[in-house]
């Protein structure tokens, strides 16, 4: 059964990898799904500890703006740009995290919100540095010493994003099964017991928060390069809420849930925009509500339950 599931994952990743061949015009959309998925993964990492962040757009925006500046200053290699942008976001998460990991529950949510809104208003107001509400152009960068055409770059970015997503998913999975990951999960309802074991809950959270910031930043950098532009909206609270929704849609249970959530969210926005014109948020709201109300474990819970039932049937 385990082997079947692993094979299935391989098939999913492989299938995703050939999609741009089948439908080249989808490359952009598929890249965005991966970028959003990374941000959703970042949020669902914090959800493991029972913490909802209504401010992760801060790190997403940090990644995208870092990519914009890097592209501007050096015209760096796209891989280096992605790595450095992700690192910048992680560094920001480290600084913010020193403060934020002291808080739980709605205070965690609100402090994240406050930080991201400060960042949002600064991005908006420091016109000479950040371009204000106009934002910045994120210029495409060359590869291995020679410049690539736009379609080449889009394809390259897609495969880089896919590789980043698979790596990140694998890494988070390993992390969650390590003692540090276990402690993170335990913070949700048994924080004191974690402390009894001689583990500092704050340190556990800080590590997770930095990792989470880096992931969101990576997603932001990928999206920034894919779109070719970044604006303060990417740090606004509704962007953060969107990530939370993706994480919850997917279900916090496993890393793939975040990507499934991101894919569903993006598909919903595309299809609803077609059939419901201006009322796609209504549909999204109803879906979120139904999931929170009736299926709190999300898509992943549904999928996992299916497998469990099949496994039980085998026995």
């Amino acid at each position, binding site marked *: 059964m385990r082997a079947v599931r692993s094979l299935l994952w391989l098939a999913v990743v492989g299938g995703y990898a050939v999609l741009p061949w089948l439908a080249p015009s989808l490359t952009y959309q598929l890249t965005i799904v991966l970028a959003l998925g990374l941000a959703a993964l970042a949020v669902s990492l914090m959800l493991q500890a029972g913490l909802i962040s209504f401010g992760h757009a801060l790190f997403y925006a940090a990644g995208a703006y870092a990519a914009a500046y890097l592209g501007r200053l050096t015209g760096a290699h796209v891989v280096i740009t992605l790595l450095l942008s992700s690192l910048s976001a992680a560094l920001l998460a480290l600084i913010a995290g020193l403060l934020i990991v002291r808080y739980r529950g*709605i205070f965690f949510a609100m402090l994240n919100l*406050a930080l991201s809104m400060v960042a949002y208003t600064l991005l908006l*107001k420091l016109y000479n540095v950040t371009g204000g509400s106009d934002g910045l152009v994120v210029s495409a960068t060359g590869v291995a010493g020679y410049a690539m055409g736009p379609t080449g770059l889009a394809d390259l970015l897609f495969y880089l994003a896919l590789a980043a997503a698979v790596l990140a998913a694998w890494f988070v999975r390993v992390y969650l099964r390590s003692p540090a990951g276990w402690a993170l999960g335990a913070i949700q*309802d048994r924080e004191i017991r974690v402390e009894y074991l001689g583990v500092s809950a704050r340190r556990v959270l800080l590590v997770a928060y930095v990792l989470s910031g880096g992931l969101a930043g990576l997603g932001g950098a990928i999206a920034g390069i894919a779109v070719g532009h970044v604006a303060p909206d990417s740090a606004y609270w509704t962007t953060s809420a969107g990530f939370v929704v993706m994480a919850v849609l997917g279900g916090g249970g496993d890393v793939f849930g975040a990507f499934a959530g991101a894919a569903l969210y993006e598909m919903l926005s595309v299809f609803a925009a077609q059939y419901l014109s201006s*009322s796609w948020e209504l549909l999204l*709201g109803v879906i*979120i509500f139904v999931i929170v109300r009736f299926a709190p474990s999300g898509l992943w819970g549904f999928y996992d339950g299916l497998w469990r039932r099949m496994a039980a049937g085998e026995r």
Partner: protein
Amino acid sequence: MTAIAGPLLSATINGVTYGATLFLVAVGLSLIFGVLRVLNVAHGSFYALGAFTAASAWLLISALGWPPLCIYPALVISALVVGVAVGPVVERGLLRWTFGIEAEAARENAQLLATYAIFLMLEDAQKLIWGGQPYYSGSALRLLGITRINGIPYTNYQLLLILVAVLVLIALRILLRGTKMGKFVLAVAEDPEVSSAMGIPVARIYTVAFTVGAILAALGGALASPTIGVNTGIGSEMIVLSFAVVAIAGLGQIEGAAVAALVIGVGHSIAVFFFPALSSVIPYATMLLVLVFKPYGLFAAAQVRRI
């Protein structure tokens, strides 16, 4: 008047009028949190619904050829209509189930997400009802004339807003501490379980408090409508501002919300006068600072909750 004192006075007056609207919305949010312990993300939508309804009321009054002064009672009626129509439906229909979730973290998270879902639904409901076009009912701003203070004209309407906010604050205090229902609300806010054991119908108190909170938000929106362009999106802006106010005051604080709204209003306005580039950062930076040093807000003791 010296070169600084004149603008300072002006900034303060503007700040207080801005703070007045902010207070109305935030105090509703605070009331809802204090009694139901729900951080209502959809609160900004109530503000927006109040503003849209008031703008429609103005159009209706103009279309019917009624005297323009009718707009002032119409603003208040709009707020009542919105609060009474939306509050109980949202609380009973969409939020009540969350109160049964036992684990605190899971309950808070479910409530954040559920109210966010409601926010999304109400945002699009606005677009479906009122379309994408903005509404301007600025005439109500002019009807009452202006008062010159230190040579600078202020609309009497905005000075009136200050009065309304003060009246709401006093009324809330009297209602909460001086009436049977108010004492029930205080009791439920502090201890819903013991309250129900004393015979207080807690579920009904929840509905009442939520509806009053929604009315206050809608009142903020209705009263602000003549001074702004009523637009989709004003709700998402207002909710974070009122979060900032209640976070600064301490969740569930009522008098505290008034002080925090004043701080943000005057701070914002002084920034407009002296450091315009920073004006919109002020509310969130203040919220951040307060949360860092006093996580439960300026006026709340660590665990005790009151309203």
